[in-house]
């Protein structure tokens, strides 16, 4: 560090950038860890089926595996659009 550096504003603190990025990615990966690995494919196939009847958004399906007492519960929720644009569908409720 020389004389002129004293007057220059400090560059962005890369260590805190690294720590912040890691906090986020590590949290995400921990959440994904232990989940059955067929979930992404199941989600994709369900989306295809649902879209035969209702034109839902690709992000409209949410799948979780939760623990309830001894067993595990596959929780699936689909947000339906306001107005159905395709196919005659029996209006589904949000959750199964």
């Amino acid at each position: 560090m020389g004389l002129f550096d004293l007057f220059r504003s400090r560059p962005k603190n890369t260590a805190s950038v690294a720590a912040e990025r890691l906090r986020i990615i590590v949290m995400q990966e921990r959440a994904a860890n232990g989940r059955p690995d067929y979930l992404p494919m199941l989600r994709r196939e369900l989306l295809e089926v649902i879209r035969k009847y209702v034109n839902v958004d690709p992000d409209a399906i949410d799948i979780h595996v939760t623990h309830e007492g001894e067993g595990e519960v596959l929780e699936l929720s689909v947000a339906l659009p306001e107005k159905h644009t395709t196919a005659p569908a029996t209006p589904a409720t949000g959750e199964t």
Partner: protein
Amino acid sequence: MTEIIVVTSGKGGVGKTTTSASLAVGLARRGKKVAVIDFDVGLRNLDLIMGCERRVVYDFVNVIQGECTLKQALIKDKRIETLHVLAASQTRDKEALSKEGVERVLNELTEDGFDYVICDSPAGIEKGASLAMYFADRAIVVVNPEVSSVRDSDRILGLLASKTRRAEQGAGGVEQHLLLTRYNPDRVANGDMMGIADVKDILGIEVLGVIPESPGVLTASNAGVPVILDDTSDAGQAYADAVARLSGEERPMRFIDATKKGFLARIFGS
């Protein structure tokens, strides 16, 4: 009672073998009977770091496959009587290791009255690494204060919590410690390197020790003398502290503060 300790990290090049060698020497120097095993079949290096590469006759795979006895394969250290090295095979691959084979060797070491068995894991999460951690009672996760090393360490922590004998038996899991290596206090002070608190906070486990980035590590490996035997080097002293903590003693962290610069040095540059 034999304690099995795995030295692991996920990422390569962070200092697993350097750490295994120094921990083994440190524990043996305290009068404990120690075996250190190289699980990096096909890429053995522990023998070089320990300085016994010319004395390897039989290796870990030979023992597992019944081609020699464990006694024939254990190399007695020339410096410390209670220290023994089991080299990895250089010509086979990791498939030559089997869970039953590894268990047999560990059981025999237990029967022979070893106090500690240090398992030097290969990088990665494949067979060699998973077998190195499987039977562990304790894990030392070696991590550099750098993004890829920290992320890989978290992956390893996840595996330690699920893919080990202790986890499967519900025996309370493997006791986990972090060992930060290649730590550069000046860079941490400048905000160029994550500090101890950052790494500890992200990974959520206790820090057993902090080994400063040090020229002593290279000179020690050049000579085949584990760096802990170099009392003049900061890294050697930091390893000795870590071994003391592992043995239940309390030691303050050293070599973690930036070098203080004088007023003139700050003005005219370093």
